[in-house]
C-alpha cells in the first residue's frame, strides 16, 4: 500500500461564508472537502449557537501548491473582514491521485 503525502488545509469561518469558501477552494483546485459545524472564540469574540450563526470547520486535502493558493486567497480577501482562521498540516493518504 502506497501512502502519498499531501496537505490538509483546515479553515474555521463564520457559517455565512460557507457557499463562497466552497466555490473559492474548488476554483483553486480542491477536489473535495469536509465540513463540520463548530463554534468558537477568537479576536472577534465568542461565536456560538446564536443569532449571528455558528462557525463552520472546513477541511480539504490538497497538493502543497493548492494549499498555498488557498491561504493566499484567504489572506487577501477574508482575514481582514471576517471571522476566519486557517492552518495547514501534513497528512498521508492512499489513492493520492484522488486529491490532485
Amino acid at each position: 500500500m502506497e501512502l502519498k503525502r499531501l496537505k490538509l488545509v483546515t479553515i474555521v469561518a463564520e457559517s455565512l461564508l460557507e457557499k463562497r469558501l466552497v466555490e473559492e477552494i474548488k476554483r483553486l483546485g480542491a477536489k473535495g472537502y469536509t465540513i463540520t459545524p463548530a463554534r468558537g472564540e477568537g479576536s472577534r469574540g465568542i461565536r456560538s449557537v446564536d443569532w449571528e450563526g455558528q462557525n463552520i470547520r472546513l477541511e480539504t486535502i490538497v497538493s502543497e501548491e493548492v494549499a498555498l493558493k488557498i491561504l493566499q486567497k484567504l489572506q487577501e480577501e477574508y482575514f481582514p473582514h471576517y471571522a476566519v482562521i486557517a492552518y495547514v498540516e501534513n497528512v498521508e493518504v492512499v489513492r493520492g491521485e484522488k486529491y490532485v
Partner: protein
Amino acid sequence: MDALELLRLNLLSPMVLAYFLGIAARLLKSDLAFPEALYTALSIYLLFAIGFKGGVELAHTPLSVVLLPALTTLALGLFRPLPAYFLARRFLKVSREDAAALAAHYGSVSAVTFLAALSFVQGVGHAAQGFLPTLVALLEVPGIVVALLLGKRHNGRLSEALHEVLAGKSVVLLLGGLLIGVLSGEAGMERVKPFFVDPFYGALTLFLLDLGMVAASRLSVLRQVGFRLILFGVGLALFHGALGVYLGLKAGLGVGGAAVLGAMSASASYIAAPAAVRIALPQANPSLYLTASLAVTFPFNLVLGIPLYHALAVLWGG
C-alpha cells in the same frame, strides 16, 4: 382600561414574561440553552404560520381595501432607512458602512414585534385586519435594499446581498406561506388550523424565551457601546412608531391596525437584515447593529413601545 392597566396587561403576558425569563437565565449563568435546531424550527414555524394566516385572510379581502395600506407600507419601507442612516452618521458618528448597516436593520421589520403588537391589540379588544401579515412581508425587503445602496455606491457584493434578502428564508417563508394561504383558502385552513393557528402563541412564548437569552448575551456589549446607542435605538423607534401610527390611520387601518403598523414601523430586523449586511457590508461591525436591534429596540418596543403606539392610535384616531 387606562394606560397603566394596559401596560400591566402587556407586561404580564406569557410572551413578555418568557422574554424576561430568558434574560434572567443568562444573568444567572444558567445552563439553559436552546439547541440551534429548535430555534430554527420555531422560526420556520412562526414565519410560515404568519404568512399562511395572512394569506387565508387576504383571499377574501377585496383589493380595494388592501391597496392603500400596502402602498403606505411600501412608502414607509423606502423612507425609514434615511433617518436611521443620518442619525447614525451625525449622532453616533459611525462610519458610512456602519451607518448603512444600522439603516438596513431599522429599515426592515421584526416579525416578533409585529406579533406581540397584534396580540396586544386583540387582547385590548380592537379589531385588526386579517391582511396585516401581508404588510409585514411588504415592509421587510425595501428598506434593506435602500440601506445597502446608501452603503455601497460602487458595485461589490450588492447583487449577492439582494439575492440574500429576496431569497432569504424569512421572505420565502412569509411570502410562500401567504401564497399557500391565498390558494388553499378556508378549506386548506380547516385542515391545518390545529397546527398553524391554535398553538401559535405558545410556540411564540418559547421563541421569546430564547430571544431573551440571546439579548442578554448582548447586554455586556451594550455597556461598552454606551448610552448613545440606547438613545439612538429608542429615539428612532419612537419617531418611526409615531409615523407608522399616523400613516396607518390615514390609510384607513383604524385604531387597532394603526397601532400594529406603528409597532412594525418602530421595529428593527434581526433575521433578514443581519444576513444581508454581513455579505454586502463586511466592514460594518456586527456588535453595533445586533446590539441596537436586539438589546435596545426590541425590548423597548415589547415592553413600552407597543402600549405607547396603541395610546397614540387611540389619541389620534379613537
